[in-house]
């Protein structure tokens, strides 16, 4: 029976985001072999491989193992490229010796595509992307581009910015990356944990863009959060990188990510914590998050990730807003503020005080935030003030603050949320922007 006579079984059987994730893995491994100087070549090769897969698979039949098919094609390309290019000075220095000989070329490339080697390659690429010399914006952009297979357009859409801006960020990142002789090596290049801290920060930023970002498409938000979690989990699989901080960041992402389905309703609108349908929260992810949080507590000091994860944990296990352990949350915010004295942390701390000790204490805390004027343009400060007034029965003051909040909204999603709140003044309390 020839393939032509078989009825198509549809290409629906592909794992979600297979192309995107395979693109990231293949680019990482090819850069690992060919050297960071050949970044563009690696990217082109991967694009070709995916085009070929699309051309071949679109007739409705998939290979038994699509991932293995892609890997095999990538291996063949890598072998071909190394044979044809023969410019070994560009290749990864530690591999060049093996790649120079026909006897060892194929085994060396085979080994680079083994699963642990792929994981290692992706991590080394992530560490190479997080060069402190470039801004975190650029770090996140090149991570999305090369490790998560996002196009410039997709990054621009996700961050609600222009393709030009993304291009600029990418150029800075690409230049730094290509200047490397080989990929970052944890054993060799990391002495102080600083690079890991940059990587964690970039992952945290990526996650927050999904969780708090301005994009009002649930799918986009979820994708960014999932990509961040995927990279975080990769760290926990590496013995030297599964530090308490890495685990705490993963815990934080699980515990926040679990609430994402409740945070946005069927009409794609943001829903406040008070009004979220808690049955929509992902219980499995909450359990995983709590597990990671427990595992993360082996270190000497609690990082901001630990504290934020612990706060998210209290929210995740609470049956309702009133049954939330606000005293514990307040204590955690006190500790967080000592590590990370930002006005946004202070705002959340004040909200927790209001919930733990009553609206009067909350209002006092809100009004005495050091550097409070920095929050003048932040819609959720006015919204928090409105909530405190409302709980004190001062409806008019609450309406006034909500009108300010609406005027300060930074995007349609926020505006819709705050307008609804304004229209429902007199409704229940509304304590947090998270």
């Amino acid at each position, binding site marked *: 029976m020839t*393939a*032509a*006579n078989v*009825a*198509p*079984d*549809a*290409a*629906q059987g*592909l794992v979600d*985001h*297979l*192309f*995107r994730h*395979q*693109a990231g893995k293949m680019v990482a491994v090819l850069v690992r072999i060919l050297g960071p100087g050949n970044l563009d070549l690696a990217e082109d090769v991967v*694009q070709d491989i*995916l*085009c070929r*897969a*699309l*051309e*071949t*698979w*679109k*007739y*409705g039949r998939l290979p038994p193992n699509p991932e293995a098919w892609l890997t095999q094609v990538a291996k063949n390309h890598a072998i071909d490229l190394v044979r044809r290019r023969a410019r070994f000075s560009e290749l990864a220095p530690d591999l060049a010796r093996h790649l120079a000989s026909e006897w060892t070329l194929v085994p060396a490339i085979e080994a680079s595509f083994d699963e642990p080697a792929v994981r290692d390659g992706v991590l080394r690429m992530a560490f190479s992307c997080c060069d402190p010399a470039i801004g975190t914006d650029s770090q996140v952009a090149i991570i999305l581009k090369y490790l998560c*297979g*996002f*196009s410039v*357009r*997709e990054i621009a859409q996700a961050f609600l910015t222009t393709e030009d801006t993304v291009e600029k960020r990418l150029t800075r990142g690409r230049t730094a990356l290509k200047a490397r002789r080989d990929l970052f090596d944890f054993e060799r290049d990391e002495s102080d944990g600083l690079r890991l801290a940059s990587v964690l920060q970039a992952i945290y930023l990526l996650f927050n863009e999904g969780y708090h970002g301005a994009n009002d498409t649930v799918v986009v938000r979820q994708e960014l959060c999932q990509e961040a979690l995927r990279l975080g989990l990769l760290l926990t699989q590496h013995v030297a990188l599964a530090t308490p901080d890495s685990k705490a960041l993963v815990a934080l992402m699980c515990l926040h990510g679990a609430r994402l389905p409740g945070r946005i309703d069927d009409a794609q609108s943001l829903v406040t914590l008070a009004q979220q349908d808690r049955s929509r929260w992902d219980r499995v992810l909450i359990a995983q998050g709590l597990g990671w949080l427990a595992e993360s507590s082996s270190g000497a000091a609690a990082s901001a990730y630990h504290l934020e994860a612990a706060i998210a944990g209290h929210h995740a296990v609470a049956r309702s807003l009133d049954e939330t352990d606000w005293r514990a949350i307040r204590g955690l915010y006190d500790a967080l503020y000592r590590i990370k004295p930002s006005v946004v942390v202070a705002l959340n701390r004040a909200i927790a005080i209001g919930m733990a000790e009553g609206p009067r204490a909350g209002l006092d805390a809100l009004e005495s935030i050091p550097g409070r004027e920095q929050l003048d343009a932040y819609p959720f400060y006015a919204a928090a003030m409105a909530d405190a007034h409302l709980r004190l029965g001062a409806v008019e003051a609450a309406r006034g603050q909500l009108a300010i909040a609406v005027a300060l909204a930074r995007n349609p999603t926020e505006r819709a949320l705050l307008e609804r709140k304004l229209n429902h003044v007199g409704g229940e309390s509304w304590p947090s922007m998270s």
Partner: protein
Amino acid sequence: MSGSAAAVRYSAEARVVRARAERKDTQMQKYMYLFRGGDAARAASSPEEMQKHLTKWGAWFKGLADKGQFAGGEPLDFTGKVLRGSKKALSDGPFAEAKDLVGGYAIVNASSMDDAVEIARGCPIFEHDGILEVRPVREMQL
């Protein structure tokens, strides 16, 4: 007498003609779809877009199969050899402009050219600005 014989013969012929016409109406014929081009759009797609596009093709072919319209189809590699003329001169091919290169084919059962064209309109190739050529397969008249 002869008039009535003629009438009988006429009506018999009419029946045959009618039967032929009916058979033509209901009988499915094979059409070949030649898929060309779309490379530029494809090459500019992100991995995620490619996978989504792939899923659409899969769904389209599955729809054809479910309706009994699919009678085979395969992708073609872009490399090949061309033999030409009485001297059978051999060269590397295909020679068409890359944008017009045939990337694959499918055989579809349709009741008429109009029907075949209608089915072709649903093809995802147009998302990539590609070309779909519909050609009736000549069948042996029995």
